[in-house]
């Protein structure tokens, strides 16, 4: 059923696609220019909450470490490991406010996103970065990795770049150009258990839930905003919050696959 619905919405995307493509080509350039505006936020508010998951967990993916065992280890790996705590809370979920056009400034480390390949794993597994940021990629292993980034558009994976790093110590930098999605998947074709995610945002009102599923986003100017949560495996959640004087709700972002 979910499958069918996705299929249908993909179809819709495809039909709209032809008309939309030309528009996106222009909009792509336009969004880059109509940039987020950094201002001093006085009396900004802090939004807190928790990310939870209640449905049936999907079966974990087990991929055998089939090569380069001296450096990569042995056994099997779940490329996208999911851990839901006993109180249903979920770690490593993106929580983002939608449609903020001005506010606080981006802080490190997000301004200089980095990804490291070490013992045939990507570190970090998930991170946040400004749209069109330059990603710095380092190989610490004495063997070939190829860093392969895709923009996830519905069910389509749109190739962003694919760079070989055949030796330890190699560093590459590449701009993360996307057309219409915020979600970037990173793979290594040489080691099919390696996986990482980057969430690109127009503005810094975005965070990751901690190990206990908690999150907080500070310095939010007044206004009514949509808040979204996204997890690479456990799906999405959406809520609307009015940021105004007085007590703010402690959000429960309930993920749905």
């Amino acid at each position, binding site marked *: 059923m979910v499958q069918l619905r996705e299929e249908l919405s993909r179809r819709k995307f495809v039909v709209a*696609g032809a008309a939309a493509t030309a528009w996106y080509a222009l909009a792509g350039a336009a969004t880059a220019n109509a940039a987020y505006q950094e201002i001093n936020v006085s009396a900004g508010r802090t939004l807190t909450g928790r990310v939870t998951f209640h449905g049936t967990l999907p079966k974990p993916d087990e991929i055998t470490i089939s090569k380069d065992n001296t450096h990569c280890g042995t056994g099997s790996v779940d490329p996208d490991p999911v851990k839901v705590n006993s109180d249903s809370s979920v770690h490593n979920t993106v929580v983002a406010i939608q449609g903020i056009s001005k506010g606080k400034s981006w802080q490190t480390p997000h301004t200089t996103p980095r990804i490291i390949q070490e013992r045939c794993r990507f570190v970090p597994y998930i991170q946040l970065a400004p749209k069109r940021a330059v990603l710095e990629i380092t190989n610490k292993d004495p*063997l070939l990795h*190829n860093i392969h980034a895709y923009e996830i558009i519905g069910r389509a*994976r*749109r190739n962003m*770049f694919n*760079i*070989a790093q055949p030796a330890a110590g190699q560093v590459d930098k590449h701009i993360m150009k996307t*057309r219409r999605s915020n979600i970037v998947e990173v793979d290594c*074709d040489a080691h099919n258990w390696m996986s990482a995610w980057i969430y690109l945002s127009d503005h810094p009102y975005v965070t990751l839930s901690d190990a206990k599923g908690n999150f907080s986003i500070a310095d939010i100017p007044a206004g009514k905003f949509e808040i979204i949560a996204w997890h690479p495996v456990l799906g999405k959640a959406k809520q609307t919050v009015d940021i105004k004087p007085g007590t703010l709700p402690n959000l429960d972002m309930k993920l749905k696959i």
Partner: protein
Amino acid sequence: MLNKRSSIIVPLLLLFIAQYSGPALAAGADPALKAAGKKIYMRECAACHGVEGDGAGPGAYILNPRPRNLQLGVFKLRSTPTGENPTDQDLFKTITRGISSMAGAMMPSFQELPAKDRWALVTYVKAVAGIDKAGKPIDLPTKPRSFDLALGRQVYERLQCAACHGVDGLGDGTSSLTLKDAQKRRIWAPDLSRGQFKGGAMPRDIYTRISTGLDGTPMPAYASKAKPNEIWALSGYVLSLSKKNIND
């Protein structure tokens, strides 16, 4: 006399330029050309690439790899760095040559179509793909007189092409068994000794593929990982796997 002749030659030359590079200069902005391209596309391409260019034409399901979803604007055969748009010439070349692999022809050659029709198709494909600006090709340094095949073999080892293509280039590398394309369909690193290349078998084609990768596939870009003379030697080595007398 001379003047008279050049007054014929110049317009002819202009006509030639208009026909062969005019659309390239117009860079997808010419609505008449785009409309002409669309008409030819519906006749020649839609059966595989779909009426919307989404790669889902009625004949698509029997092909592997599938006909490209042109809307995504991702191209394997580029002279431009990984992640960049192809040049108009790259697309013109693909349409002219078609695409054949060791598994046979997947996309027919359209060299029978008049050049102006193929340029109109380039304009239309770019519009479907959302390409507003062509990419900038990589530098292609002068080809050496002969290839240093021993160096080429060394570079093949150093760059670990063997991980996918195998120690002897037969497509049997340890990673080859788990490769997938952007659509998560199985894809294989080709047996380089078969001498069948999607983007052409000229040394400069191989140089370009190694430098820029084939976007949407596991084949990565190696541009910054070896010096130009090393990539030339490697290109010669790759070709020597199928052509014994590459240096003659």
